[in-house]
């Protein structure tokens, strides 16, 4: 704002100097123009301060609310765990089914609250990291083992390929796992029956590069620019997938950016997507 004010003063002075003969009038025009710029500038800056404060309050509200929500949600989770434990009581098939539904809903809500907390942290620039050495190779294998039963239910196969020997990564392992999980979850969720998801890991200069390829529904051309926006869900997905908050890719990008890596994708509608990210290797 200071630069604009000085520029306006000089500009007004030069214009007035060349077009007005009396120096008193020149001075008066410069003072008036500077005064106007000051007033306008004050309102613009006040507006920004107000917006920043409103944004901070909104994020803080989300953060506190999310924390408060997790307590009753964990109470429901643990109670359900007890109710579903066959060492305590035998359940018939119908009871098991209903408890499974409750458990899935409860976990979905916890995941949503966790996602909102992460979004709030990303927006506040408070996504703190606790970096350390870890094996991305092992992490991918663990994740595949965890997701395979769910993928199999949807008729989707999971594959993994490592290009040569890869060194350990240097990052906050828990955060990387969340970013990776979000990409793999999407790949599985948006694959059709009989689809194949392939994860590839390799070295890319001083970084590890992980690619998640699927031959699913893909992203429409006109929506590609919005993929990493909050709450983004593509039109072709909304039609038949009611689940999903559209926060996964926003969070994955927030994590990878905070780690000093890069994230990107290529995609063709009805042919599939290829999402990738990089993280630094351990020194």
């Amino acid at each position, binding site marked *: 704002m200071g630069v604009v004010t000085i520029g306006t003063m000089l500009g007004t002075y030069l214009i007035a100097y060349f077009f007005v003969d009396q120096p008193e009038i020149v001075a008066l025009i410069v003072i008036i123009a500077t005064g106007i710029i000051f007033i306008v500038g004050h309102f613009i800056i006040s507006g920004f301060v107000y917006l920043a404060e409103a944004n901070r309050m909104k994020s803080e509200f989300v953060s506190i609310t999310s924390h408060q929500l997790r*307590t009753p949600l964990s109470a429901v989770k643990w109670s359900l765990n007890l109710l579903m*434990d066959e060492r305590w009581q035998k359940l018939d098939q119908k009871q098991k089914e209903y408890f499974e539904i409750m458990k899935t809903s409860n976990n979905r809500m916890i995941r949503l609250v966790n996602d909102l907390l992460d979004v709030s942290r990303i927006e506040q620039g408070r996504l*703190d990291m606790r970096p350390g050495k870890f094996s991305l190779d092992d992490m991918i294998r663990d994740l595949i083992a965890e997701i395979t039963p769910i993928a199999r239910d949807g008729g989707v196969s999971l594959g993994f390929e490592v290009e040569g020997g890869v060194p350990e990564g240097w990052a906050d392992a828990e955060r990387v796992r969340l970013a990776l999980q979000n990409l793999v979850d999407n790949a599985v969720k948006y694959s059709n029956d009989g689809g194949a998801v392939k994860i590839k890991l390799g070295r890319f200069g001083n970084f590890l590069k992980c690619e998640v390829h699927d031959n699913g529904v893909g992203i429409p051309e006109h929506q590609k620019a919005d993929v990493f926006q909050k709450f983004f869900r593509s039109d072709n997905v909304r039609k038949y997938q009611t689940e999903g908050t559209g926060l996964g890719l926003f969070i994955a990008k927030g994590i990878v950016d905070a780690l000093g890596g890069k994230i990107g994708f290529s995609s063709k509608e009805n042919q599939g997507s290829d999402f990738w990210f990089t993280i630094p290797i351990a020194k």
Partner: protein
Amino acid sequence: MTKIIFVEDEPTLQKTLCDVLRKEGYDVKAAFDGVAGLELIKLEKPDLVLLDLILPKMDGFTVLKKMREDEETKDIPVMILTNLEGTFDVERVLELGATTYLVKANYELREVVEKIKKMLEK
């Protein structure tokens, strides 16, 4: 019998975990606030303390700090069971001497019990 004290103000969480741990054969006692929890810890000198952080009367950070200042309780392992998750909170309790830190909402009851068993085996 291995003694565990669980300081937790949310009644359902307290009851479920206490029930499961008792079924596993542990001697479990519980408190609903920090002051009562600290008294119980000093009195019972348990093998393990499970401690929430947001508690009435005295928060978990203070309970942990006071435990570590007391000759008789300073070496008792403490597992933090909370729904706070900021890096600052994690670092603060680890600096204060907590042995481990779990976010309750992210763990199944069975997983928590497994972690407790592992801690007690050490």
